[in-house]
């Protein structure tokens, strides 16, 4: 007991970096908040609060907002209403962006064919043939909603539970709570891809994978294609791995002399981070090198996955990261903002992503990883049943729509073969089982064994949660 008391939060955090995760820290502290001990502190009550159904998360974020009405939320009734004005009784004062505020709100049905798939009979459009083939592994949520109607605040909300940048994202919260299972790689990895056809890109900001007020070691580490997959990973010119090894040996020796002189335990923590950096110099390139993947991998994920930095390549990397025990794997694929040219551009987007998304689920499943890996696919909001531009031409598109959109989930603890939630005949409002982003977050955390209400961090005197002051776990999404 004496020894435990002598160990301090700072030491814990220092050593945490060397192997003991924050989760272990919090549980060793017996759930004590550091309200009395510091400006910021460990979770009020240390996770896991429940048996975890999922050990890790792969988020397949489709940035720009995929049109749910053309992919997952089938509305055959709109065909008969094509060209009609959207009734005010349906719109109920919903804002639109200033891009369509000045035009008539004309109903535009989906030009794509839908069919039912799998034993579950899930409706999906012809644009997603591979996803359709795994329908029975999916839980399709058609009733997700948000308040934000512009990309930056909506994506920030989806990631952090708040529309203004500055709070920690769900990936940072997760690794903060559960720690890492791989001592050679960061616990939270981010990858970004764009399609080659250059559809409507929305920029992605670093704050989307920031740790906010959580300790910065929990921020997402971005992997990039090319020689420098992590910034500053390669040694500088003329410094070989053997030279570096020698330097680190000396650094360790001299630093431990200094630790003896000062008594500061932080020095040992620093040495361990330098050693982790050295191991990452090996582990990251090994991770990124797909040359050891058999042919069938590319048959599964698609030929495009051979191109480094493509969505397909990133999906393969996601599986490799999952195999290595990385806790939170965040993919972004941009180009889903179809204000115009929707019929053509949406088809391109799907061609670039459908096979890889589905391939990842299939791959995880056959390797026995799907049981404890949670896969989430979706954008930051939805798109409107109303056309933007002239719907009689192929140039038309759809404006943003926050009141309902579709997300699918698969794996760890998710109720597979389910379609959850309903929208009205226009696909405009949720009519059954609404799932707010906060609810989705609460549910994701629950699957990870975390009670979103007890999972807090004290920052500048206030206890913050990912779910702010809201959020309900949605039982219907869990098996």
């Amino acid at each position, binding site marked *: 007991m004496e020894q435990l008391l002598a160990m301090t939060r700072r*030491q814990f955090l220092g050593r945490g970096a060397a192997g003991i995760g924050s989760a272990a820290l919090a549980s060793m502290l017996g759930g004590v908040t550091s309200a009395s001990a510091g400006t910021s502190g460990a979770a009020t009550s240390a996770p896991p609060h429940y048996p975890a159904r999922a050990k890790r998360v792969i988020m397949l974020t489709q940035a720009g907002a995929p049109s749910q009405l053309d992919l997952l939320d089938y509305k055959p009734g709109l065909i008969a209403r094509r060209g009609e004005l959207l009734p005010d009784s349906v719109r109920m004062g919903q804002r639109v962006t200033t*891009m369509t505020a000045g035009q008539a709100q004309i109903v535009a049905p989906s030009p794509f064919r839908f069919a039912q798939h799998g034993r579950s009979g899930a409706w999906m459009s012809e644009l997603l043939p591979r996803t359709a083939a795994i329908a029975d592994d999916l839980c399709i949520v058609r009733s997700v909603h948000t308040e934000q109607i512009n990309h930056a605040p909506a994506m920030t909300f989806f990631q952090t539970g708040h529309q203004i*940048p*500055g709070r920690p994202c769900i990936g940072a919260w997760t690794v903060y709570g559960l720690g890492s299972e791989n001592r050679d790689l960061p616990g939270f990895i981010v990858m970004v891809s764009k399609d080659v056809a250059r559809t409507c890109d929305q920029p992605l*900001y670093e704050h989307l994978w920031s740790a906010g007020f959580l300790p910065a070691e929990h921020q997402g580490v971005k992997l990039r294609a090319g020689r420098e997959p992590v910034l500053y990973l390669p040694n500088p010119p*003329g410094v070989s791995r053997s030279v570096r090894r020698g*330097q680190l040996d000396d650094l360790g020796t*001299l630093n431990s002399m200094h630790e003896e002189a000062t*008594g500061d335990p932080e020095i040992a923590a620093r040495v361990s981070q330098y050693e982790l950096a050295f191991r990452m110099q090996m582990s990251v390139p090994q991770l990124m090198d797909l040359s050891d993947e058999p042919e069938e991998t590319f048959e599964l994920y698609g030929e495009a996955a051979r191109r480094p930095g493509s969505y397909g390549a990133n999906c393969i990397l996601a599986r490799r990261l999952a195999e290595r025990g990385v806790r939170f794997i965040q993919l972004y694929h941009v180009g889903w903002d179809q204000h115009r040219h929707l019929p053509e551009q949406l088809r391109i987007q799907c061609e670039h992503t459908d096979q890889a998304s589905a391939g990842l689920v299939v791959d995880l499943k056959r390797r026995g990883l799907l049981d404890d890996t949670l896969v989430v696919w979706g954008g930051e909001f939805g798109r409107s049943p109303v056309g933007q531009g002239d719907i009689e031409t192929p140039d038309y598109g759809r404006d943003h729509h926050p009141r309902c959109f579709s997300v699918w989930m698969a794996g760890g603890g998710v109720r597979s073969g389910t379609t959850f939630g309903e929208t009205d005949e226009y696909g405009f409002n949720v009519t059954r089982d609404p799932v707010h982003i906060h609810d989705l977050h609460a549910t994701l955390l629950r699957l990870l064994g975390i009670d979103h209400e007890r999972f807090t961090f004290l920052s500048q*005197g206030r206890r913050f949660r990912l779910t702010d002051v809201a959020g309900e776990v949605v039982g219907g999404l869990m098996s």
Partner: protein
Amino acid sequence: MLETLLTLAAATILGAPPLAGQPGVDFDRDIRPILSDACYKCHGPDAGDRKAGLRLDLREGLFGATRGEAGEMAAVVVPGSPQESELARRVGSDDPDERMPPPEAARQLTEVEVSLLGRWIAEGGTWSGHWAFEPVGPIEAPGVSDAGWCRNEIDRFVLAVLEHEGLRPAAEADRRTFLRRVSLDLTGLAPSGEELAAFLADDGAGAYERAVDRLLASSRFGEHFAAGWLDAARYADSNGFQLDPDRTAWPWRDWVIRAFNENMPYDEFAREQIAGDLLPGAGESQILATMFNRNHPINGEGGRDVEESRNDYVNDRVDTTSTVWLGLTMACAQCHDHKYDPVSQKDYYRFAAYFNSIDEDGSGDQGDEPPLLEMKGPDGGELHVMVMRERTEPRQTHVLVRGAWDAPGEAVGPGTPERLWSLPGAPANRLGLAEWVADPANPLTARVEVNRLWQAEFGAGLVRTPGNFGIQGERPTHPELLDWLAGEFMRRGWDVKAMLRLMVTSATYRQSSACGAALFDRDPENRLLARASRFRLASGVLRDQALGASGLLVERVGGPPVKPYHPAGVWEDVSFGRLSYAQGTGDELYRRSLYTFWRRTAAPANMFDTSMRQKCSVRVIRTNTPLQALILMNDETYAEAAAALAERTLYGSVSSPGASDRESIARVFEAVLGRPARAAELAVLTRRLVELRAYYADHADEASAAACVGERPDPREDRRTEIAALAGVCSVVFNLDEALSRE
């Protein structure tokens, strides 16, 4: 049991009284924090969430009545009688229907807290206001046994606590350590060899004070303090968001440097930045100062409602102004009354009204959005800088229902929070706000600023929540010292340099940081100040230090931002190829870090633990990650600094030809750490140098690559092996924990 012991351990470190056997539970120190943290959520200032009409944040509520067990009215607290006090009964009840906080509440009371509440009532239940909202009163430095240790009043406050804890201050740091420490703390740069030699040679009385005065007079001082202010003021050279267009913010940055260097009194510093444009006879400099309130991000995203964006900017100004000057978390009152502090939602929008009437339209499609100040640039060209300027027709401000920009409620006019203090006669505009902030009767302004100055010099504030002096913020480790400093600050005419001088010439500051593991265990966060804190330097300071030690640093105060080394593709990645980083040349690569171009969507990649410049940030961030190690060993900046230091050591103007390996390494140590190398250190690194020399002799291409890294002129071919080998050692020295730390 464990919980109890840990709480006690924490309480002892904080200087709170132990649980039993000692008199003196103090309401503000011991009781209000418990009530606030565990009870205010439902029984606090927020009328919207208040349960049973009971509020414990007000004296009247705490000593008033509530509904008791059988529905009868019962006294919440009866001074002296826990038995008759409903509060004590409810927090101690085993009945889940009775117990408070209710069993489902996330925040439960610990046994220690329950017993403290009981003890407080039993001891008479005295009440006092929240310390930070009480006036800064006159305070005498306490008496101490060892008065001979004290150099000024600060030390008497610190020593009194140490004597109470049975601790002795650490020994004085040696002169070299002191000079490096104070140079880094005041100017962000380590002393040069000449500066160090001059200090070591000055054995007259007042040598320390002379060194401090030299540093305070240096233009480096203003640069260093400006860097911290840029974080607080969310300074950036671009707008952020979708297109992230560049903006002209650097003239304001230079204004801040000038203000610090000219030692502008802090009240004036506040007045000019908040309302310089409204000051009588406002000149260009006063108007420029108001860019403080335009440094927020601007969202020019297509399709966005401009009024929504404009409201975001107003809210950002409320958040920044209240945090930076007042340590108040007003942002918490945007959607509902503040849960803890006496700030209502209506107060929030009255405060917002100060910032709601400038001529901006919220569209944000250009870099510099009106209102703009036209200025002459350094090359005679025109500059347009965003500033504050009132509209002729003021905009009506409304309380926004649940904070939603498109749900206006009651109309309100500008005003300061009603339940804090007021300044009668101040005009109802930003100038009035500025006068209220800078008013000596304002209990927060001076406390918040001396705390930030203390944080800059000691590594952590006396209040460890520099952005929250409210009820949920931390209490000061040394409350009397904080108040004495705040009083002294105002008595000395808000003289920033004078306060810093006082701090760094104290015996407290001059202590050694090497104290042995026992004291680290007893007081890991150094709340008692029985030693000097040692901590890792800010990333910008680390870069400046490497440039300084290697002789690459180009010192020139102010001017447009520069683009030093940056990994390829970062800007392109974030903007999908729309923006590309055009690296600077020559001097631009070697300017101090605060001049580096700050793109809001992609911060400089080799800066870490900094504010992201998305919103106001006043906290210190010090983490330890592998990414930092990668930067410090692999970034071209540091690789070139290592090579340049090696070249300078071996072949520079002051090098001694034919120096031995030991001599070379000793010189590297002096250059980076400002101290001679010890024999054991020399032994380790000499062995390394010999090995590296042999390696590079066999690998001429690698030697050449290592010696010629960066854009500085390549060294002569016959020198490259030697330079590469010593550069390998320099890189080790740059990365020693001692080099990364302020000792």
